[in-house]
């Protein structure tokens, strides 16, 4: 069985440190800590210089297959759809609201000058409303991402990196 055929959530293979893992990456520390049993066994790196080039191509292809595999996994599709279900309606609504505001301000100036309370008119309320909706949407997006996406995305990141490392190591 090829290592990348496994379930996305299973990471039992002994991945070697591949070149793309950087030691100053903070997530790497978390990863190494969490998967200490697969790491640092002191085995010599299994490289065979003579056949190196072909193997690298193989392992690149294997790593590319990992990404296709992850992309098709239910876990990733869930993360992607959560992201899109929030971002697409949010983008469309604030963009239309902004364009409507700019177009109204430049074309319907008399309507915008309608007084509401004292010297405050429709234009002032609409402008301050733009500030308000920007702040509210920022807060809502940050909250949605934190609660609905971050954990799943981090899990996928670990799994994908484990699989990629496995794929590269496995081909060598």
């Amino acid at each position, binding site marked *: 069985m090829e290592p990348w055929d496994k379930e996305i959530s299973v990471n039992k293979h002994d991945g070697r440190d591949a070149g*793309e893992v*950087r030691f*100053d*990456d*903070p*997530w790497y520390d978390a990863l190494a800590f969490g998967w200490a049993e697969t790491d640092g066994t002191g085995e010599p790196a299994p490289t065979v210089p003579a056949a190196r080039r072909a193997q690298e191509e193989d392992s690149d292809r294997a790593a*590319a*297959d990992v*990404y*296709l595999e*992850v*992309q098709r996994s239910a876990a*990733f599709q869930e*993360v*992607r759809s959560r*992201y899109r279900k929030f*971002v697409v309606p*949010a*983008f469309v609504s*604030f*963009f239309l609201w*902004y*364009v409507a*505001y*700019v*177009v109204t*301000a*430049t*074309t319907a*100036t*008399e309507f*915008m*000058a309608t007084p509401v*309370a*004292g*010297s*405050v*008119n429709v*234009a*002032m309320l609409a*402008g301050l409303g*733009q*500030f308000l909706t*920007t*702040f509210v*949407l*920022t*807060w809502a*997006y*940050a909250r949605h*991402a934190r609660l609905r996406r*971050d954990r799943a*995305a*981090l899990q*996928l*990141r670990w799994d*994908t*990196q484990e699989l*990629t490392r496995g794929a590269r190591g496995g081909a060598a």
Partner: protein
Amino acid sequence: MTGNHQSLVLVLFSVFVAVTLGITTWASRNRHGSAEEFYTGSRLFSPVENGLAIAGDYMSAASFLGISGLIALFGYDGMLYSVGFLVAWLVVLLLVAELVRNCGRFTLADVLAARMRERPVRIAAGTSSVIVSVLYLVAQMVGAGSLVALLLGGTGGAAQTWTVIGVGALMVVYVSLGGMRATTWIQIVKAVLLLAGTLVLGVLVMVRFGGDFNELLSTAADNSGFGEAFLAPGLEYGGSWTDRLDFISLGLALVLGTAGLPHILSRFYTVPTARAARRSVVWAIGLIGGFYLMTILLGFGAAAIVGSDEVRESNEAGNTAVPLLALDLGGGADSTGGPVLFAVVAAVAFATILAVVAGVTLSSSASVAHDLYASFRRAGAKQRSEVAVARVAAVGIGVVSIGLSLLSGSLNVAFLVGLAFAVAASANLPVLLFTLFWRRFTTRGAVWSVYGGLIPAVALVVFSPVVSGRPTSMFPGADFAFFPLENPGLISIPLGFLAGWLGTVTSSEEADEAKHAETEVRSLTGAGAV
């Protein structure tokens, strides 16, 4: 203005320059000379630090002095700018910040090169990034020249020329010696100074009116000479339909351009993770939003307290509204407080310009070294370290923008900034969004998208009234202005998207499924991110 004012302003300028040079020395002592360190400060900034630095990168002197001045002169129409500059950050937050952090390393082209054939997309994205940055730099330096001449009371060209040269030399020193670490800390210091300065002035304005916003607005309307019309849109952009379309075009460019500005994109690489990038944008939105709310207070405050006519007398474009307001709020020209507050505002404006130009220079030197030099280098040429090339590029960009700024000293600063945003929105944003979100997007689509936005944007400006046909144009004698709008965004942004689509559907190669999968997985999860 008295001599005392001027010497106080000069002392504060010098203190700021000394502090920033100190930061640069400290940063260059700690560096290891790696590309990671030079372009990103080793990606070790915290979200709060980066949020402040983003705000510092974004809040230019044009906003601080220019928007408040516009409000002081034309009332509500100036406020339209504040709204556009802020709402733009939602595009960055929702569609760009996290995904770019996950996919790229140093520049915009890195994100495209992850999916496409590397050489053509690097050359295209690198070229458009450098053009946007140079336009933005020239705008800031022309602004610096006229601002310093204005604030120091210097007359004529000499003060202006030496300011442009001085600012250019300082920015080259910051960037080439200190890299991203020094640039970021300079921006943080500047952001704190600017936010504190506007907050103090805003509070003083509100105190003057007993905390009554309504009272402030009605006094501003009374002292503006326009009455109630001052509080409604239309004084500046309400004239002909061309003017109105022009403003809509500018509004689009502002809101879509921010997410394509290279120096803003490069800020997301200075934090360790996509989550940190998101949190830094949330901080930035809070800080920038607060700042633009204050500029509205300052603008109406200047109209109410100083009076629009007096502002117009001091400077046709209104750029001195805030310094004049500070002078009055501090107790007037003859008191101790007035000149001190005036000098502080002048020094803050100067700090603002220095920090912004340093940020833009750094990101454009990254585009030159990381994208263009790497693509054009001959195979046999001596291998140089990328950082060394980037340092040389910073010097080169400094020299080029000093030269261009001296040549274009008479151009309107707000127009140059609007143009930089329009080019960014037309050339950089479509290709970035297509790469991140469109499965079938191909290399040809990417290249067409960049040039299909860049060339119309620049060409439409050449054939606009800005360049010829009006007494205020660059060449008032000639008339080849067949495009009526000053800002090309309304036409060139859709063209950028259209060219990307057209290039993709006509290209013979299929999009690489595996590369798309890699981009999508990496952008949303952060797998394999550096």
